[in-house]
């Protein structure tokens, strides 16, 4: 279980406080207008922004003191998710066992690539991909990494309606299968209605 207790964040003159609990295998959607601290919350959970006060507990253990590299978190950022100078396959491998995925892990990656329609792009450089293709590659690596908490910052923003549906279903199935905790930021009410178990709307 992921618990966020009285977590206070501030950016400039703005400040926010969060309190919520997320059960394993559940998805939480963060909604609200731009500039209301949704991404800041994800950055704080990922260890990139310090909290002013409060606690983040995973299975009852506090994790807010851990640096970003040691947090049990896998993040999809809004941009710069792929290294531009190495191939798509190479980028995907980096998420597992220091760049050396096991046979089973790689099979899952390949199956996900097949499912999301990017199987034939593995040998290309990211610069040769469209925005939607890049987003799917990064999404696959983020979701399949063996971390109990997954943070997705606008994961479906570059996808067309059909791919959005496909990707959303796949993410939902993976979270249910692995029992991970997933938080995602979205501007689309339909995403929250379709996939989220909980919705936090920040005004």
């Amino acid at each position, binding site marked *: 279980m992921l618990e966020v207790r009285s977590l206070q964040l501030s950016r400039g003159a703005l400040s926010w406080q969060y309190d919520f609990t997320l059960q*394993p295998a559940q998805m939480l959607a963060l909604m609200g207008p731009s500039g209301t601290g949704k991404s800041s919350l994800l950055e704080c959970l*990922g*260890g*990139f922004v310090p909290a002013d006060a409060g606690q983040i507990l995973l299975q009852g253990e506090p994790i807010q003191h*851990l*640096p*970003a*590299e*040691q*947090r*049990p*978190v*896998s*993040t999809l*950022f809004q941009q*710069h*998710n792929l*290294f*531009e*100078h*190495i191939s798509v396959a*190479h980028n995907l*491998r*980096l*998420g597992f066992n*220091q*760049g*050396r995925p096991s046979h089973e892990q790689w099979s899952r990656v390949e199956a996900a690539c097949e499912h999301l329609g990017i199987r034939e792009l593995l040998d290309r450089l990211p610069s040769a991909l469209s925005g939607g293709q890049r987003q799917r590659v990064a999404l696959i690596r983020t979701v399949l*990494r*063996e*971390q*109990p908490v997954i943070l997705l910052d606008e994961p479906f923003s570059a996808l067309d309606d059909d791919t959005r549906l496909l990707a959303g279903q796949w993410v939902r199935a993976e979270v249910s299968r*692995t*029992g*991970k905790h997933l938080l995602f930021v979205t501007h689309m009410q339909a995403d929250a209605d379709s996939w989220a178990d909980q919705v936090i709307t920040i005004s």
Partner: protein
Amino acid sequence: MSGGTRSANDSIMSRPVLINLPTNRTGLWFWFWQRWPIMLPGALALLLMLGISVMAFVALAGWGDAGVDTTLLQEPWFWRVLQFSIWQALLSALLSVLLALPVARALALDQRLPGKSWFLRWCLLCFVMPSLVLITGLVALFGRSGLLTPLLPDGWNLYGLSGILLAHVFLNLPFALRVFTFQWQSIPQGAWKMSAQLGLSGWQRFRLVELPALRAVVPAVTGFVFLLCFNSFAVVLALGGGPRATTLEVAIFQALKYDFNPPEALFLAWTQLLVAGGLYLMFSRWGGLQWLTPLQPDSGWRPHLSRAGRIGGGFAYLLCVLFLSLPVLVLIPTALQANLSAVPWQEMLQVSLRSVILAISAACLALLLALAVLSWWRRFASPTLRRLIETAALHHLVIPGMVLSVGVYVMLMPWLNWQEWGWLAIILLNALVALPFVFQQLKPRVFEYDANYRPLLADLGLGAWPHWKLVYGPFLKPVLQRVFAISFVLALGDFAIFGIFGNDEWRTLPWMIYTLSGSYRLAEAALASLLLLMLALVALRLLERNHA
């Protein structure tokens, strides 16, 4: 649930997040103790770089028995040398810049000019060309029995100011050309289109569009070329023509090597350091220069050049091509005149191999030092700390190679037999001389890497070796190869440092060329020059391939 946290060791090794240093002393020690595996290479590199400079300074300050001979201030000879050093550097810089401007404009704006990218690649080679190769070519063209000497006025003498200017313009005009061409090319297409659409005259367009772009680089290029020529050694030593045409750098060498007069050498070295350092500090504020980038393809709209402008530019281009190619091309027929059975092939091969090994070692060391220093630089958040590290990495720009060499030579002379250990100093000092260039080329790339990927790297939590092997190494590889090639060529052509630490029984290729020329064996010198040039070309080919 699968997953969990990574090991603390892995994360410390790969930590790419910015570090804020603890403020108390105990915290600082603990902080270093925790991170010594990643901090040690940077610390050793900085210690080595600063230690050698301090050592040179201590020696120059007159530590031990040798004092500084300030009586030289009363010697007219000293003032003549200083005056000539400045005068030849000023003329060389002005000529290089003024001649480069029209050719660069033609290269950037005349889309019909042939062979532009080849020419700019050739310019790169000319800029880093070992001086001794050029000097042999100039002697074959303009020397006493040179190919073109009959066409020159009576009383022409290559040795003296004219020869020095010819060589300095040959070496530095290509640099100015590359910088100006890139600068002209970087003018946005929108500015050209707007000037055409507003119906601006050629002069108005030059004043409003081209001049502002050039104003940013012309003073910096002039200053940089001036400094290079002020510190020039091989050209002045070979073409200087006696005491009337000597620079400080050569005077230091002669004071130490031939007269063995350390006090005089120390005074001259201090003068050199103060003048060169002051000049560097002055023009380093004028901004960085782009010269290693390959020529951009002629895409996009460019203004139509007038017929006169096109013909003038084309003619300047042709003259420039001839000027920059003839001293090298002439080496081929000159080398063919060599009596092949009298050529010391065995020695030439040995000397070449020695030069290559020394140059590879120096280039590798320069790269390792720069990477180690950058590993520190990228881990600190404080701008002040970063600036301090940068200053430590770049400070050898201010200390000319001759000053550093003299300092180290004098300081360690009582304990080290330079006849035996000179090779170590040659590698180390050549690496230090190349280090500022290597650091400056690598830093923006490392900055870009951190700016783009810092959060992603923290999220992925790769260990040190997988991070290097899979991501960081491949990212830096093109620029590492580029700086390696340039550092290799610079060290390959080294003449000054070897002049201090080397000896006749243990020569490098540039010194072999110098010795052959000095004993009037021009054909053999040309052959050795071609060999040196080929080695430089191979290295630079590597560079260009990576640009492609």
